[in-house]
């Protein structure tokens, strides 16, 4: 079972790491944020699986911390999008 949990942790981590290619390709900042959001959720899942595999209950607290800070960071990033656009685009006019 330990081997299975470790393998599952590795698989989830590999999947979200692949998703990071979206940060490279963009094209928009919204796409980059989605990849970061997926990485956050995947990171939480990986932490929980790792913790179960190695029997370290404290990883659940690390996952809790990560979940709360990920929400905070994502909200801050979404709010930063209009101002942090490509410099060659015009400012939003709404």
């Amino acid at each position, binding site marked *: *079972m330990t081997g*299975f*949990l470790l393998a*599952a942790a590795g*698989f*989830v981590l590999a*999947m*979200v790491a*692949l*998703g990071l*290619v*979206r940060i490279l390709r963009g094209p*928009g*900042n*919204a*796409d980059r*944020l*989605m*990849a970061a*959001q*997926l990485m956050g*959720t*995947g990171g*939480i*899942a990986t932490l*929980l*699986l790792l913790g*179960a595999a190695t029997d370290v*209950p404290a990883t*659940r607290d690390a*996952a*809790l911390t990560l*979940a*709360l800070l*990920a*929400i905070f960071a*994502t*909200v801050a990033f*979404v709010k930063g*999008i*209009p101002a942090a*656009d490509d410099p060659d*685009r*015009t400012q*939003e006019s*709404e």
Partner: protein
Amino acid sequence: MSLVLDVFSIAAICAGAFFFLAGTAGLLRFPDALTRLHALTKADNLGLGLVVLGLLPRAGGVLPALKLIAIWLLVLLASAIVSQLIGRAARRESRLQ
């Protein structure tokens, strides 16, 4: 009994991992921001949810299990609202292009 629980864990975690696979595939392959967002929320809600479900029997008590569920609920709440915000930002960006 423990065999049944192990099988349950393995099945749920495999299903969760599948949704992470699907979410990543969607994020990479879907044509525009809003469809990608659709794929992402599946990984967020179902992927993590199924992984948490699979880990519940191994949590070693009611309180740790409740903590796992609380983490999932937090991510669920955040994902519901953040994906709205990301969707709005994506629409704004596509209009600027």
